[in-house]
């Protein structure tokens, strides 16, 4: 197989330009905001992945040093009201935030994709039925829905993931449905049917690859929303259980002692802001790159 692929390539006579990925990279490089976003995202994701290795202290260990201490060489972001190292807690909190974001968004993405494809390509009555359900879910205010589910199931990381996943499914499903519908009108879909291709083949080979790109970009722009939601729920005491650190709990604890020391609030707030900015800038840059209509330089 490899050998034959090479022979076909060697018969090629025309000179080909850069591959698509090289072109995308060049575009991203010329977009300073997008590049900044990329750096932030890499930093955040990297520190979340390596959290267990890079934390200077055990984030739950109560140290003998000062409580609510200001930044110092031993504790770059100070210590909290129990004397725990804030930097270690922020890094571990990032891991929790990323975990929630990745888990919730991948669940929402896969289910939303499936429902969207069914609604967009299936019969009209199925489309109408699915839309009714999706719109009903979306009509709930997220926080109220979250509080209701948490009251029912009890606060935990899994519950937060579940809430975020359920509330995000309708958004993705709608995007996929619309894309699928507009793609189905293309003549090449009709041509595939005329050749005898079945629905699974048309959806999998000819529609899915055209839908997945915009969807991943949308998801990357949703990461900050999810992180903010997790932080918000944890702030309300409805998210991650102590002593597991989360940006929301760090904020909440710091808020109670803000008159004694501003450092915990600053330490908990800044990563949320940076992550939000990073994913938003990167997502917007990716959208500009992959959506040819918004492309300026081509």
């Amino acid at each position, binding site marked *: 197989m490899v050998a034959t692929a090479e022979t076909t390539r060697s*018969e090629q006579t*025309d000179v080909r330009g850069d591959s698509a990925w090289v072109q995308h990279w060049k575009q991203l490089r010329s977009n300073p905001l997008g590049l900044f976003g990329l750096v932030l995202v890499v930093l955040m994701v990297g520190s979340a992945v390596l959290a267990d290795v890079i934390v200077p202290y055990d984030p739950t260990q109560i140290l003998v040093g000062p409580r609510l201490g200001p930044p110092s060489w031993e504790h770059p972001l100070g210590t909290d009201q129990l004397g725990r190292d804030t930097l270690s807690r922020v890094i571990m909190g990032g891991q929790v935030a990323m975990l929630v974001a990745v888990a919730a968004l991948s669940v929402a993405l896969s289910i939303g994709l499936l429902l969207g494809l069914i609604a967009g390509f299936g019969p009209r009555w199925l489309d109408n039925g699915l839309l009714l359900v999706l719109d009903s879910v979306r009509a709930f205010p997220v926080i109220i829905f979250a509080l209701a589910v948490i009251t029912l199931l009890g606060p935990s990381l899994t519950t937060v993931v579940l809430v975020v996943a359920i509330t995000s499914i309708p958004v993705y499903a709608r995007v996929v449905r619309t894309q699928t519908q507009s793609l189905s009108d293309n003549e090449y879909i009709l*041509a595939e049917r005329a*050749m005898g291709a079945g629905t699974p083949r048309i959806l999998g080979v000819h529609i899915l690859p055209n839908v997945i790109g915009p969807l991943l970009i949308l998801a990357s722009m949703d990461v900050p929303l999810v992180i903010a939601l997790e932080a918000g729920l944890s702030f309300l005491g409805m998210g991650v259980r102590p002593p597991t650190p989360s940006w929301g709990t760090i904020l909440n604890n710091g808020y109670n002692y803000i008159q004694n020391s501003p450092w915990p609030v600053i330490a908990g707030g800044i990563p949320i802001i940076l992550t939000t900015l990073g994913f938003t800038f990167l997502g917007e840059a990716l959208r500009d790159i992959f959506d040819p209509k918004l492309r300026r330089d081509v």
Partner: protein
Amino acid sequence: MSTLLEVEHLKVRFRSMGALRALMRRVKDPYIDAVCDVSFRIGRGETLGLVGESGSGKSTIARALMGLIPSHGGSMRFDGTELRGLSQRAYKPVRRDMAMMFQDPVGSLSPRLTVRSLITEPFRIHGVRDRDMDAETRRLLEMVGLPAGFAQRFPHQLSGGQARRVGVARALALDPRLVIADEPTAGLDVSIQGEVMNLLAELQDRLGIGMVVITHNLNVVRHISDQMAVMYLGRFVEQGPTEEVFHRPRHPYTEVLLSANPEPDPDAKLHRVEARGDIPSLAHRPTGCEFHTRCPRARDYCREVAPALSSAAPDHTYTCHFPLEADAKERRLEA
């Protein structure tokens, strides 16, 4: 010549409004007839040209034949098999023997597949695994006159003519017995149109496939079809051997179409016959002869009585009360 495809009294209707709205407006028959009582026969290796204005139902016939839209009456027998009422599953083997080329040369190619994947797609769809796909790719590209290097290209890297050739290669991949070409030359430069027409004619000679060519380009019809049919509002108004229809048209609409066809010779004396007004809506078909609203020869009689099918020769039929005489064309040239 044995019959490959025989269509009798084919009828295709489209819903014009939803069931609820039809009920509210008391419309008993919320349908429009896109194709009405169409009959034709194609022998093996024969070509039928379908001409007519946009919206006359040419493409609808093609789609009904491919089973892409349901039909509502008549019969379609392909190689002895009745196609009407077949399930999508039962249609699959038919789609191996009957291939269709769509109007938009680039738009009918899936944008993320390479040319190699595109022209070997029929093999994968029909589970043909015992062939060497690289060899097949080379064979098909050579057949349509494209260099083997095109195998790695994507549709957006092709010109209209190249994309059309890829479409031809894909249609011929599984050696079909019938190819339906919907506007094979639409949107191409005149020189490329000629190339595509020659390619189709040559392949047809060599491979002996039957073809249905849908077009409003009369030169295409004349170049590659043995039989032709002229459509108006979903009906065949004239049908016969191509040369016969070109030289001795009987229906005034055929004459209008023929006289609208640009002549290559600028000095040729032209006798223009034009149709008045626009093509009527399918939802409000004219009474009597449906062409009377635009016919230069219409009389009161035409407004009231629909003409029956008449024959000028055994295989040359038309529907007109006052057909053009056989020598009309000759007289026209003298004038």
